């Protein structure tokens, strides 16, 4: 009894000083179950291809392409949903409508300009913040600094939109404050303008810029910056020559996320816009939402938007992202 106790204690003591290594992996990969299933699969080239490509391709084809394919089908029909007693036939007319009338063309252009501007503003505003958290804040404080940035996003899109309304409305916080101080006697109309829409949109989507930027900047080795400073590079030169090129990956993905989200934006952020800010998604949604509903036209327009937005993103990535440089 006594002796077994001491050995147990000994073991406990020595265990504490010995770091724990994962010895289970060997047990798993040497087990017959693993060897005859996954293990065997990765042995052969075909097995590896299936393992690597199988699930992703099925998912992409079924759930990314599938619904879009549905839309494509609908967009080529003259009527949908098909009413009893009505014939639906194949037509390209729904696409032709888009090119025929500037009424629909203009919102698309507007959408692109708007999304581009929103992306640029978000990038400029968020970059210093991401840089500050990733490089200036000490590592111990980093997760807390990041957390502080994340918290507001848990309130939900609608609530955040209404928060912006409460800030900018004629009887919102800013106007009330200005009136109390005596700077103004009539409220400044800030809400329902392009300003409030931009303000709110950046407010809603800056996270999509922040996280990619943060993870890219955080990766830049700090000694590199010190080395540059040592060589006499001023802050601006250091930024332009070292930080900016090295965080390019983050800029590209952040901009893509924000741009694509902005292009497809509808509903909530629209609550902040004025009467002149009509964007393409709203036009599309009109076809689905309007009293005379025209799914085929809406579907066709959605596809037009999809293709142009993806093409724009691809061009952007090609321009900024450059070639993929992968060490072989």
């Amino acid at each position, binding site marked *: 009894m006594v002796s077994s106790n001491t050995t147990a204690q000994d073991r406990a003591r020595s265990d504490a000083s010995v770091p724990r290594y994962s*010895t289970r992996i060997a047990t798993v990969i040497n087990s017959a179950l693993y060897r005859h299933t996954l293990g065997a699969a990765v042995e052969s080239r075909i097995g590896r291809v299936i393992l690597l490509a199988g699930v992703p391709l099925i998912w992409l084809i079924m759930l990314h392409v599938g619904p879009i394919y549905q839309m494509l089908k609908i967009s080529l029909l003259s009527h949908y949903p098909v009413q009893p007693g009505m014939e639906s036939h194949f037509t390209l007319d729904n696409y032709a409508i888009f090119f025929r009338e500037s009424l629909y063309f203009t919102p698309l252009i507007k959408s692109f300009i708007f999304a581009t501007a929103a992306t640029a503003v978000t990038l400029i505003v968020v970059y210093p913040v991401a840089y500050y958290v990733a490089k200036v804040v000490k590592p111990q404080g980093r997760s807390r600094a990041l957390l502080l940035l994340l918290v507001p996003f848990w309130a939900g899109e609608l609530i955040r939109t209404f928060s912006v309304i409460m800030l900018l409305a004629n009887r919102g916080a800013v106007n009330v404050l200005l009136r109390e101080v005596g700077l103004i006697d009539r409220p400044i109309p800030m809400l329902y303008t392009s300003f409030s829409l931009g303000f709110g949109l950046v407010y809603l989507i800056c996270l999509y810029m922040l996280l990619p930027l943060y993870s890219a900047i955080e990766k830049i080795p700090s000694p590199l910056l010190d080395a540059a400073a040592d060589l006499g590079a001023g802050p601006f030169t250091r930024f332009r020559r070292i930080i900016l090129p090295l965080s390019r990956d983050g800029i590209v993905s952040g901009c893509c996320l924000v741009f694509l989200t902005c292009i497809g934006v509808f509903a909530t952020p629209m609550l902040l816009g004025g009467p002149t800010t009509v964007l393409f998604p709203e036009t599309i949604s009109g076809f689905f939402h309007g009293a005379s509903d025209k799914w085929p036209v809406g579907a066709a327009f959605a596809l037009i938007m999809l293709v142009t937005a993806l093409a724009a993103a691809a061009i952007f990535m090609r321009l900024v992202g450059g070639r993929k440089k992968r060490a072989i």
Partner: protein
Amino acid sequence: MEPVVQFDNVNKSYGGYVAVENLNLSIEAGKFVTLLGPSGCGKSTSLRMLGGFERPTSGRILLNGKDVTRVPPNKRNVNIVFQDYALFPHMTVAKNIAFGLELKGFDNQKIHRRVSELLELVQLEEYARRLPSELSGGQRQRVALMRALAPDPDVLLLDEPLSALDAKLRQQMQIELKSIQEKTGKTFMFVTHDQEEALTMSDTIVVMNKGRIEQMGDPDTLYGRPGSVFVANFIGETNLLRSTVLGMDGDMTTLSWNGITITASQGGLAPKLGEHLYVVLRPEAIHCSVAEPASGNRIKGKIRQRVFKGNHTSLMVDVGDGTLLNTLVHPSEIAHLSGENIWVGWKPETATVIPDRHAHN
């Protein structure tokens, strides 16, 4: 004794580009073998084929007599030290080293013992819990080495592991590498384009050029008796004297060079009368003096350039027609060579003839 590694007629080509051509090579156990050559000569490809990362287009690779040509890297008992170390950034030093052991199914205690032992070997015990990003270049290099040694491979492959270090550290690591190799008795297969590294550490050097083995041998042989112009040029500094054979005398050959008659060792070659050959003459074999040497090959020249190199001075001597000879002079002698006109001389046995392969290329 059976060789550890055998390349048997191995070819590797990418599309139309031939990277390795008819490679036949046997490596004995416990040796430090270096594949030496300029970039693109096929040395790294050969190493990666042995590691299992590339598959030969044809031919076989044998490890301990077993054909491993189609065996994936994880099933071969060889390990690589990568050029940029490829340490796992999210694992501590100890965990990096333990990685291969974990996969071998050792128990915790055994892994711990082995890791400590290896860390001790390179005096990194205190760094066990650090992340690779917290180490210096030399330390990372040692960790990479230990990680590759940990699973006790049959052959340790080193892919230009010193190229990322600064000059001083590199020299230090050369010595350390050699001593680790001797302590562990492992077979090391080292790839480099740096002839100095190769000469310092290797038991055997395999010089490669354009996918083929140019010459193979111990450092002395390669340096003293290079088999080709390429080898002579690639290893060390050298003077190549293009000469014509006048006659043979035992091991020695008499040749005509630059208007004078010189003698050189045949070096296993069988020269024919009238044939054009190169005489390899190492700078340090040349003796410079004001007075004409009493014996041996000698020629008058003018000093064109002096380069001070610390422990010696390099003199470029014009021996007529603008032909320059590169010579090395000890500091003790340089004081005597104040004027421009000097004599250069060398003993016949320090020079070797090699065939004039340029004619064929």
